[in-house]
């Protein structure tokens, strides 16, 4: 049977076919849909959101120790969070098969860096598989579990955004039972005190030797012979780009990319006049091949930055002198088009907080989530964004060195606070920092599409859940200045921020409105602009609400008045609160008036 599946859906299907028993993750684009698919369609697998990737990874290790096949998934930067258990699990090996999916984001479609996580597999000295489409995603997951158990190792499956979010036709297989294993006490293998770890490091090196043998033999690495003098070594989605623009060259297609099949590569290179390595981001394969004394070319034609494409691959091959021309249109690229950046939704509860912060002109350390969009003009309300949970630590450091004259405010979402913001707040209390932390709580993990988290009361699989009460937690950490506020009350939130910045010691301001996309509209009735009263001052334009646009009518200076799209307006009232001429009114009042 065939089905159209995205790479993420295919990974979920593969886990089901491999008899996986447990899957754990924290949502992160482009990996999120793997667990969502498992929870929706493959309910034989227990799936859970964990507070962060490190915990998800540790839960996965526990399931593997317990004898079951386990899956942990995350975006590339998530593995930074989970790197601690990851590096040591390479030493302990597994009981039930263990696969870690790293979904990398070349081009940074929705990420803060574009690190190439293939290096993590090499760093930990574990096998690395790289599928190039949905079918391979499904097939390789099944293979990865077999490898994990045969070689007693965690296995990394590395996806990229283009693999995760592309759909293709997949031939489905039958689900299997995972191995029937039990937990066996074996402290010399699973307790990594130095004396045991020294022994296990030797095992890791021996295992790597066996994997070097295996990579030469596995059909995951194969040659496509077309009788060409030019050879291409490639894997992942780059393989398909290359086949698209140069189908007649010979290919060494790599699906098992750590350790590399260096003998197979040497043979391939020996039998071709020129061999070119095509890979996205870092020269991960190319450098290892060159280090082995094998002559290939690559990065000089394709560059280190961003995502490849059929066009970029064609350009690179032309630069390499192996193709004559690139098919392009003669259309002049459209210059000077306006940008269309993502914006906070109409009625988004974060908007009020950012309007107030901009007004105050304070230093604002930001974090990862929808509210990071507060950095964009016209809100311009965020001054740093590094990684999940960084806002509070950033604010503490800034305040310690310069006691910023207008105060330092950290903004962090509810899901991010529970992910890794808590420890920052512990630091603020412990080191008595004069920071004001705003927990912008919209009761959901919004940026990735509205997932549950530890304070929402529901699990990934839809069960009722234990609830972390953020207010109680914050107070238990020793925060004395705790304020709960309505972010739709502009003057209210403005005053509370001022007061808490003036308060010595750490303060927490906790907003109380849910994400506007998730449950329902704030009010049923939209607002409208009374053009008689609107003087074109543009105050409402500066709040960056997608429901507010320029009207055809202008004021005496030719500046446009405002108009509100009533299909988008949620009735959040913020624009009405800041309109100096009270021109923004409920639609019913307008009609009556």
């Amino acid at each position, binding site marked *: 049977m065939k089905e159209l599946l995205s790479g993420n859906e295919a990974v979920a299907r593969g886990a089901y076919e491999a008899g996986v028993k447990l899957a754990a993750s924290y949502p992160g*684009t482009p990996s999120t849909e793997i667990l969502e698919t498992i929870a929706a369609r493959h309910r034989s697998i227990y799936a859970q959101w964990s507070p962060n990737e490190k915990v998800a990874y540790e839960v996965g290790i526990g399931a593997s120790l317990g004898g079951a096949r386990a899956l942990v998934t995350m975006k590339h930067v998530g593995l930074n969070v989970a790197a601690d258990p990851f590096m040591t699990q390479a030493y302990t090996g597994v009981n039930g098969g263990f696969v870690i999916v790293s979904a990398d984001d070349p081009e940074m479609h929705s990420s803060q860096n574009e690190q190439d996580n293939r290096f993590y597999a090499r760093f930990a000295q574990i096998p690395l598989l790289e599928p190039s489409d949905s079918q391979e995603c499904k097939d390789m997951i099944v293979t990865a579990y077999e490898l994990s158990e045969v070689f007693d190792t965690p296995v990394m499956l590395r996806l990229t955004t283009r693999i995760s979010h592309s759909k*293709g*036709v997949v031939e489905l297989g039958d689900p299997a039972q995972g191995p029937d294993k039990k937990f066996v006490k074996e402290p010399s293998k699973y307790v990594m005190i130095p004396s045991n770890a020294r022994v296990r490091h030797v095992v890791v090196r021996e295992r790597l030797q066996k994997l070097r043998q295996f990579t030469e033999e596995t059909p995951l690495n194969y040659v496509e012979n077309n009788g060409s003098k030019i050879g291409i070594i490639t894997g992942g989605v780059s393989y398909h780009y290359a086949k698209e623009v140069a189908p007649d060259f010979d290919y060494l297609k790599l699906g098992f990319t750590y350790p590399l099949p260096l003998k197979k590569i040497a043979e391939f290179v020996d039998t071709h006049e020129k061999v070119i390595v095509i890979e996205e981001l870092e020269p991960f394969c190319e450098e290892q091949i060159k280090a082995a004394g094998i002559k290939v070319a690559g990065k000089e034609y394709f560059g280190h930055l961003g995502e490849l*494409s059929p066009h970029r691959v064609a350009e690179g091959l032309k630069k390499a002198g192996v193709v004559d021309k690139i098919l392009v*249109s003669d259309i002049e690229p459209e210059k000077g088009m306006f940008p*269309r950046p*993502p914006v906070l939704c109409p009625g988004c509860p974060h908007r009020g907080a950012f309007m107030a912060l901009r007004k105050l002109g304070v230093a604002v350390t930001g974090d990862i989530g929808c509210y990071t969009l507060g950095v964009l*003009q016209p809100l311009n309300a965020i001054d740093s964004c590094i990684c999940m949970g960084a806002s509070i630590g950033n604010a503490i450091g800034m305040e310690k060195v310069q006691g910023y004259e207008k105060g330092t405010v950290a903004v962090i979402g509810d899901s991010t606070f529970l992910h890794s913001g808590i420890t920052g707040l512990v630091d603020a209390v412990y080191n008595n920092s004069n920071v004001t932390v705003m927990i912008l709580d919209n009761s959901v993990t919004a940026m990735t599409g509205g997932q549950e988290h530890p304070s929402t009361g529901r699990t990934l699989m839809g069960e009722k859940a234990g609830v972390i009460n953020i207010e109680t937690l914050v107070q238990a950490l020793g925060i004395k200045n705790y304020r709960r506020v309505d972010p739709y009350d502009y003057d209210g939130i403005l005053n509370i921020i001022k007061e808490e910045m003036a308060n010595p010691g750490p303060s927490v301001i906790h907003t109380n409105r849910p994400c506007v996309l998730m449950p329902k509209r704030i009010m049923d009735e939209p607002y409208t602009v009374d053009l008689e009263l609107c003087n074109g001052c543009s105050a409402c334009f500066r709040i960056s609400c997608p429901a507010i646009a320029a009207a055809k009518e202008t004021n005496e200076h030719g500046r446009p008045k405002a108009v509100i799209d009533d*299909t988008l307006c949620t009735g959040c009232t913020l624009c009405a609160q800041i309109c100096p001429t009270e021109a923004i009114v409920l639609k019913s009042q307008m009609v009556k008036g």
Partner: protein
Amino acid sequence: MKEKDNYSILIVGVGGQGVLLASEIITEVAMGAGLDVKKSEVHGMAQRGGIVSSHVRIAPRVYSPTIGYGQADIIVAFEQAEGLRAMDWMKKDGVAIASMTRLVPAIVTSSKQFSYPDDSIDEMKKKADRVIGVPADKIAMELGNPRLVNTILMGVMSNYLPFDSELWLDVIRKKVKPKFVDVNVEAFNRGRQIQLSTAKG
């Protein structure tokens, strides 16, 4: 297949307009017709009012999930300026179908730095021979639901693909919520007729 058996289709619009559902339907139709198919899109921040684009590739054997510049047989734009922005992908003898819909982003309203084109469809016509402007937003309002723009445009586009109308309608019935099926079928048919009446030129 009537004329050829491979198509690259680029669908563009703004978050929330239904770009992903439309590309899903085309993909299912092509698979139903027995062809290999791949589609590629980027989610994430695009859900928040940013640009959404979906590449659909149809052939007996598809390699790249994305379309190269100048390689799209069909461009479907749910928003006129996004249609103009997508023209880099247009093949010389391709066809572009664009809704007259205008969605001016907040950044243009709030900043003097940027401006929104007066008539993107005219601009598109300067770049390519076959551009069809469709008052899909008006037709959608006539049908009583502004969200039907995507189905109307699919109806227009279906005239340029060798798949039977019934195949399209089967997939639409499967993918759309039951209570919206009838109005979507009507929207698809309206779109299919529009093209036929303007195809003479």
